[in-house]
């Protein structure tokens, strides 16, 4: 029954989105059908397009975890964007501090450094919520503006490559500090880390103490207190774990996609991740297909730039429309559900 309702909701979302996107294309004077064709072409239409979609999916699925994990305890975090940048900073710091001492341990340490930065930044928001009762949604939104600016400071200032001819970026990462790519494409280790972390998180939610604790806290804070659960500890821990995932996304983007830290690396993935977490509606495993869908939408938007000459901002319009359609559709599902219950 739950599954059937989910399918109806999904069908509604897709139908609404196609209608809304068609209206948008008509409004900007483009025929919808060729636009949709270009979108499919650019996202799943060829092996190359598919691989580019998967490249975009890796930071998105990792950032989706940064929202989905705190959401297990009923928290609304929008902090993935800031945590992604925090991870790219600490990971890059590790590379720059290593001098020439690179070896087989470099990659794991690089990932740990990135995860630590994201986790610390996530834990900060968790602490603010747990200790000081600061609303986590607004706190994370404000925190999101600090780390990207700090990256700007670093790449224009102390970390700037002196040989980059004025281009604000660090030196290129050495090969030992680059995540491996596979299948002669740009698809890299980050994707497999993202998928495995989602699977681990889904299993842990069902089997670990923290998983049950989070569910109890979400269901009833008073009950969980009587059961002796520390709400504070759970909040900080979930935020830190989610932040670690976003931090990995950040260092992966810097290490393999760009090969160096530069201004705005990976920007937008955090908010796309929030959209994915929202679409999944609390089902961790559903993060995977929805991350693919949102990544495909991003790749599709890129192709619209090439084929139809639309500006890059078209991606945000499409993401916003998908978001709005999902909200409208879930409300319909809820209302019909209520009617069903009362009968």
């Amino acid at each position, binding site marked *: 029954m739950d599954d059937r309702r989910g399918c109806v909701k999904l069908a509604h979302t897709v139908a609404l989105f196609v209608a809304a996107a068609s209206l948008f294309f008509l409004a*900007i004077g483009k025929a919808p059908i060729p636009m949709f064709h270009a979108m499919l072409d650019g996202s799943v239409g060829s092996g190359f397009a598919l691989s580019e979609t998967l490249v975009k999916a890796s930071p998105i699925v990792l950032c989706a975890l940064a929202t989905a994990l705190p959401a297990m305890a*009923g928290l*609304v975090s*929008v902090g993935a964007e800031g945590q992604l940048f925090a991870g790219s900073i600490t990971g890059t710091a590790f590379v720059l501090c290593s001098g020439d001492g690179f070896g087989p341990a470099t990659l794991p340490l690089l990932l740990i450094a990135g995860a630590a930065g994201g986790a610390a930044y996530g834990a900060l928001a968790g602490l*603010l919520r747990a200790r*000081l*009762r*600061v*609303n986590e*949604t*607004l*706190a994370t*939104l*404000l*925190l*999101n*503006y*600090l780390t990207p*600016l*700090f990256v*700007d*400071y670093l790449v*224009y*200032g102390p970390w700037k490559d002196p040989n980059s001819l004025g281009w604000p970026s660090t030196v290129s990462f050495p090969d030992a500090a680059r995540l491996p790519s596979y299948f002669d494409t740009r698809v890299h280790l980050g994707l497999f880390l993202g998928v495995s972390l989602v699977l681990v998180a889904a299993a842990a939610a069902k089997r670990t103490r923290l998983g049950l604790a989070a569910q109890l806290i979400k269901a009833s804070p008073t009950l969980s207190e009587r059961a002796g659960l520390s709400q504070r500890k759970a909040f900080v821990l979930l935020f830190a774990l989610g932040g670690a995932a976003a931090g990995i996304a950040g260092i992966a983007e810097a290490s393999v996609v760009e090969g160096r830290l530069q201004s705005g690396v990976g920007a937008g993935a955090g*908010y796309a991740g*929030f*959209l994915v977490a*929202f679409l999944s509606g609390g089902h961790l495993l559903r993060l995977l297909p929805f991350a693919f869908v949102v990544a495909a939408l991003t790749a599709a938007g890129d192709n619209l730039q090439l084929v139809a000459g*639309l*500006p*890059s*901002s*078209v*991606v*945000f*319009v*499409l*993401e*916003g*429309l998908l*978001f*709005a359609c999902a*909200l*409208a559709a*879930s*409300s*319909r599902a*809820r209302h019909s559900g209520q009617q069903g219950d009362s009968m």
Partner: protein
Amino acid sequence: VSAVELLSSVSPGFAAAALRSATPLLWALLGETVVQRAGIVNLGTEGQMLVGAAAAFGITAHTGGPWLGLAGGALAGCALSLVHALLCVRYRGNQFASGLAVWLMGFGISGYVGAGFVGQSIEGFPPLSGSWLGRVPVARDLTPTVLLSFAAVVFCWVLVYRTRPGLALRAVGESVAAARIAGLRASWVQAGCIAFGGILSGVGGAALSIDYAQTWAEGMTKGRGLVAVGLVIVARWNPLLALPAALLFGASEALSLRLQSAGVTVSQHLLHMLPYVTSLVVFVAICTRRGTASGAPAGLRAVLDG
């Protein structure tokens, strides 16, 4: 007002710079105050400011009329805010999610419309130094949108505390159910507040693009709309306190610009962080005392603490 006096005692030029920088934020802050009073949080304020900024810039560039641009910005902000009203009032969707959807749309649409505006220049409002205000110390360095925003502060205070619609929206913000029993059409009141907030945030965006910056850049609000949502809480949902709250951001931005031009050795990128750090620290400090939602309308408390 005491904050203004404090600033002008430092330097009249600095006070004017802080006020000019605070104005776009102040408009959005006032709008969001009314919205939150009715029990709704609208993160879409950021997107509404952006479409307001883009529409105002385009209209001003084409017609040469900044007043027409200001009106266009207000309309654009209002139109986009109706999406939030539809999603979270009509469809009862999650308010944070709906606000983010509106933000993304506003970012995208304004970027799309504004793609052709990059690098264009416009003629904004004529400086007040040419008018009768030219002899008043701080006022001569201000612009019409700054002075209008002062009027808007008073207007919003009167609206919220001294009028029938104001009583209605506060009642709805406390309890939708009770307001319905009293015969109010709560959904329409909330939708109306969101639309009002849309108008004010659109004006705020317009003030940014055609008055403060006099250029267009993608995403030029840089989080001002989100800062506004947080600072409403700092201002305790009171339109009169919105002015000092907005000045926190405005004064830090003016300070960071002034330090840059004074040739301080600190990186400009670190200085850019200053207004956000100030806003965050004050937000945390205010929330810390009794939790984010203490003193909030009961309906809003359910959203913020839920």
